[in-house]
């Protein structure tokens, strides 16, 4: 034995190739018991914006990590307001993996996420506000700094403000200094806010 060239270049594909399947076929396959079949369907449904409700419904109940990943990638590729609204719902779930995956997906969608960011950052649920600041960490959008300044100026929850300050230390400019100073006065008894604010101000001023 030794190195050999493949006799037939490659084995046949397990499933029909992309573009051949109809929406109806793919939606049926999305409910197949075998994860590779569901993964195939999930991936190819990225070509159908009308499949967003089905992709989201499947995402909420999918237990196989590889299929879940394919569903999230397809929702990210479609990336419309309906897909983003579904991802926002994932932020409210107890499932940490699903929540983190939704945060990752939303970071890739600045155009679709920006219009709803103000609402997310003022959501009644402090956890959702923290996750929204987490989205800003890698969101390519010119308003990121202003959103963070608004958060530290207004948010009543110390953990939300702390998350925003950490990020401002990285992305903030002199524009954020006044808001950072003001935050110290809002939470005078919180040592972490004092520490994080001082660090952020130092980094901004030295940069």
């Amino acid at each position, binding site marked *: *034995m030794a190195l*050999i*060239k493949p006799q037939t270049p490659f084995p046949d594909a397990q499933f029909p*190739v*992309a573009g051949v399947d109809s929406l109806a076929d793919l939606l049926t396959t999305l409910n197949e018991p075998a994860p590779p079949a569901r993964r195939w369907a999930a991936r190819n449904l990225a070509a159908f914006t009308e499949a967003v409700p089905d992709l989201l419904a499947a995402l909420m109940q999918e237990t196989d990590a590889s299929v879940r990943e394919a569903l999230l990638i397809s929702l*990210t590729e479609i990336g419309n307001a309906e897909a983003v609204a579904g991802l926002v719902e994932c932020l409210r779930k107890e499932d940490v993996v699903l929540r983190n995956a939704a945060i990752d997906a939303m970071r890739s969608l600045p155009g679709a996420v920006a219009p709803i960011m103000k609402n997310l950052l003022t959501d009644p649920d402090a956890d959702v506000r923290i996750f929204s600041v987490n989205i800003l960490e890698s969101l390519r*959008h010119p308003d990121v700094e202003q959103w963070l300044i608004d958060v530290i100026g207004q948010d009543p929850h110390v953990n939300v403000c702390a998350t925003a300050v950490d990020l401002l230390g990285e992305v903030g400019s002199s524009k954020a200094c006044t808001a950072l100073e003001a935050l110290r006065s809002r939470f005078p008894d919180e040592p972490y806010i004092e520490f994080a604010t001082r660090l952020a101000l130092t980094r901004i001023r030295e940069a």
Partner: protein
Amino acid sequence: MTDIAISLEEFRKFREFFYRKTGIQFEDSKRYFVDKRLSERIRQTEAGTFRNYFTLLRFQVSGEELQQLTNLMTVNETYFFREEYQLKCLVRSILPEIVARKKTGDVLRVWSIPSSSGEEPYSIALYVSELWPAINEWAIELISSDIDTDILGKARDGRYSVRAIQNIPPALLQRYFTPIAPNEYRIHQELRDSVEFTRVNLMNPLDTSCYRHFDVIFCRNLLIYFDDLSRRKAAEVFYDALNPGGFICLGHSESMSRITSLFRVRKFPEAIVYQKPELP
């Protein structure tokens, strides 16, 4: 033209940001390398200052400038036996574990992507042929792919400069290469025939759907050029392409764990690689 000065704080700020985006970490010793490229891009983009450039890098919706800078920071000439510790890992740890699960008569399949001009797939072929003790007991198919048809032509042709082959031990060089011109060698026909070169765009499901049943994938220093979504799509392609329990080797600065949780980390004595979980 004078270089634009990058302060230590700016270097650190950039380093942290760049690591988070790409997983590439620059030590303090690389400061000159980083500063030079940063100031070059600041000048070319007419940003004027680091602060303006960093804002562009951070917030540009298309991410084009980050891609440009990434290319500049990662330009590497490829050569034989690059990141050799992974080739050692292949023959000492990975292949023995794979064949322990195989039946007599089974074929092992290895996919090397991108092929570039052939240095990596031929290095794998050389290493396996010469340094894997069980080579005579098993058949191995080695497939190597690239998106660039010109480079595939060069790979099939197998001609290399002295610089590309400088890490090959003299005995192997003599056995597998023929000098064809001053400073130029050609790899032997036997080895050229042992690799199947194919054109593949990892982002196109039509291209990738028939790549299945691989035991090992080498994909080194490619994903660093992709954006986040493309990396995740590529990881999915590899997941589908691998047999359960199959391995994927990435470049030293790349981490599958930062892209997806689909694979598990395997720490071998020679290298850290990633493994598709075996069936439950």
